[in-house]
C-alpha cells in the first residue's frame, strides 16, 4: 500500500491536521498543499486587528522552521488537479503525482459572489485570504467610502475596521436585521446601535437592484430606489464550500463534502474536514451541519489527523463562534436554532448571555455579548454544559448570583 499522507488545503484545518499526524506518532511523508503563496496563517484577524495594524500582518500558524522540524512538506502556490481514487494518488496542476495512504481534503470555502449584473467588476472585492485583505486595506484610506453588502460577521467586522481607519462605511443587508442567522435580535440590536454610534450607515431589509462600476466609483441602486456611491464595495454574503475536487472524484456531497462523525468521506481512504465538509453532530441528534468556524477547523484538524491513522475518534465538539467589533466581543456556543425558549443572564456593565433551551430542558446554545472578554468564562461553561446534554434550571441560569461553574458539578 502507498505510503504517505497528503493534505489538500493549508489553512487552519489542514495545517493542524499535519501537526496532529506527527503528534500521534506518524513518521511517514506528510505533504501539505496550499494554493496561496504564503506560509499557513490565521484568517480571523484579517477582518479585525490584522487589518488595522500599520502594516497588514498575517498571523502565521507555523513558520518554516516549525514545518521543517515536523517534517511537513508544505507546497505553496500549488494546486491539486485531480484525485485518482483507484490508484490512491493525486495529480498536481504542475503535473506531479503524489501517492497517498490517506488523503485529507481541507479545501475550505470561497466567498459567495454577487449575482447582480455588473458584480464582477473593479471596486468590488471579497474577503477570505491575506491577499484579499491587502487589496481591501490598500483602498481604505481615511475618507474612503466603503459599501459593504451583507450584515454578517465579516461585513460588520470590516465596517468597524474601516471606521477605525477613518473611512466611511455603509452596510446593506437584505434581511430585516443584522446578524439574522447568527445571533438573537437582542444581541443584534446592541451591535446595530454600536455601529450607528460609530457613524456607520446601516440599511436593512432592502434588496439590491443593481450594481454599476464606473472608473471612479461603484454605484449601488437599492430595490426601493435609493442610490449609494462608494469607492469600494466588499460583499460578505456567505461562503460556498470548495468541493470541485471531491465532486470530480465522485465523492458524496451534501452541502459540502459529506463525512461521518470520524470525518471520513464516502471513500474510506479520503477524509474531509473544516469549512468544506458537512458532518453529523451527535449532540443535536446527528443533525448534519457545515460550519465556517476557526475553532471547528482546528478541532477537525486534530480529530482527523488521528483518524487518518486509524483511530476511531468521533468529532463531537460543540460549535463555537466569536466576533470582535469595536470594544465588543460576541461569543456563541452551540446552535441557537435548536432552542425553543430562552433565558437571559445579566453579567454587569451591559454584558449579557442568552441561554437557549430545547423543549426537553436541554441547554442547546448560549449567545453572549459584552465589552472585551466579559462573556468568555460563562460561555465556556455553557459550552461544556451543552456538550454534556445538561438540563440546567432556567432560574439558576438567569440568576446573576448563581455561579455557573456550580452547575457543571450537578
Amino acid at each position: 500500500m502507498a505510503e504517505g499522507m497528503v493534505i489538500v488545503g493549508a489553512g487552519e484545518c489542514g495545517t493542524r491536521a499535519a501537526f496532529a499526524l506527527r503528534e500521534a506518532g506518524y513518521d511517514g511523508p506528510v505533504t501539505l498543499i496550499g494554493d496561496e503563496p504564503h506560509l499557513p496563517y490565521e484568517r480571523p484577524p484579517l477582518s479585525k486587528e490584522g487589518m488595522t495594524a500599520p502594516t497588514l500582518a498575517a498571523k502565521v500558524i507555523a513558520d518554516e522552521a516549525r514545518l521543517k522540524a515536523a517534517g511537513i512538506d508544505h507546497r505553496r502556490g500549488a494546486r491539486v488537479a485531480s484525485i485518482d481514487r483507484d490508484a490512491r494518488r493525486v495529480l498536481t496542476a504542475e503535473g506531479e503525482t503524489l501517492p497517498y495512504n490517506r488523503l485529507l481534503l481541507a479545501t475550505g470555502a470561497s466567498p459567495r459572489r454577487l449575482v447582480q449584473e455588473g458584480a464582477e467588476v473593479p471596486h468590488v472585492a471579497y474577503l477570505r485570504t491575506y491577499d484579499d485583505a491587502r487589496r481591501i486595506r490598500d483602498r481604505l484610506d481615511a475618507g474612503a467610502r466603503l459599501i459593504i453588502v451583507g450584515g454578517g460577521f465579516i461585513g460588520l467586522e470590516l465596517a468597524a475596521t474601516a471606521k477605525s481607519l477613518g473611512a466611511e462605511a455603509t452596510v446593506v443587508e437584505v434581511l430585516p436585521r443584522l446578524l439574522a442567522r447568527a445571533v438573537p435580535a437582542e444581541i443584534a440590536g446592541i451591535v446595530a446601535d454600536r455601529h450607528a454610534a460609530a457613524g456607520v450607515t446601516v440599511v436593512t431589509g432592502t434588496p439590491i437592484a443593481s450594481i454599476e462600476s464606473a472608473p471612479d466609483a461603484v454605484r449601488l441602486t437599492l430595490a426601493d430606489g435609493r442610490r449609494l456611491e462608494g469607492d469600494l464595495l466588499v460583499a460578505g454574503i456567505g461562503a460556498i464550500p470548495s468541493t470541485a475536487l471531491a465532486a470530480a472524484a465522485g465523492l458524496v456531497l451534501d452541502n459540502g463534502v459529506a463525512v461521518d462523525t470520524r470525518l471520513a468521506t464516502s471513500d474510506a481512504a479520503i477524509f474531509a474536514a473544516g469549512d468544506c465538509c458537512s458532518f453529523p453532530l451527535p449532540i443535536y441528534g446527528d443533525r448534519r451541519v457545515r460550519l465556517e468556524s476557526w475553532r471547528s477547523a482546528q478541532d477537525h484538524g486534530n480529530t482527523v489527523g488521528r483518524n487518518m491513522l486509524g483511530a476511531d475518534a468521533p468529532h463531537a465538539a460543540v460549535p463555537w463562534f466569536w466576533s470582535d467589533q469595536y470594544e465588543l466581543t460576541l461569543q456563541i456556543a452551540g446552535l441557537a436554532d435548536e432552542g425553543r425558549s430562552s433565558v437571559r443572564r445579566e453579567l454587569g456593565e451591559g454584558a449579557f448571555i442568552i441561554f437557549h433551551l430545547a423543549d426537553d430542558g436541554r441547554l442547546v446554545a448560549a449567545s453572549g455579548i459584552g465589552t472585551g472578554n466579559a462573556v468568555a468564562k460563562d460561555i465556556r461553561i455553557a459550552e461544556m454544559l451543552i456538550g454534556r446534554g445538561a438540563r440546567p434550571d432556567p432560574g439558576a441560569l438567569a440568576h446573576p448570583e448563581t455561579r455557573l461553574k456550580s452547575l457543571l458539578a450537578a
Partner: protein
Amino acid sequence: MPNWTRACATDDVEEEDVIRFDHASGVFAIYRSPDDEFFATAGICTHEHTCLADGLVMGDVIECPKHNGRFNYKTGKGLGAPIIENIKTYPVKVEDGDVFIDLG
C-alpha cells in the same frame, strides 16, 4: 535576588479561579487551585494579546478567553494548538493572608 511583590489578598481569588494583577513590570495572572494553593504566570497569552485572567480555570488548567489556548498554570506548559510557546511562571508565597510573587 528574590523580588517579592504583594499581588493580592488570598480572599481576592476564589477557589479554582484567577485574577489579574497589574504591576509596573507588566500584567500577571494569580491563580488559586482547587486544592487551595496559589500560583502565578505572565498575564498575557503567548498566542495573541489576550488577558488570561478573563479565562476559565478548570483544575490545573487556564484557558484563554479568546481562542481557547490552554496552559497548565502550575508549570506554564502550553497544552496544544493554537499555543506554541509555554507561559512564564513565577514563584508564589502566602504570608498572613497576602499573596506575594517573585518578580525576580
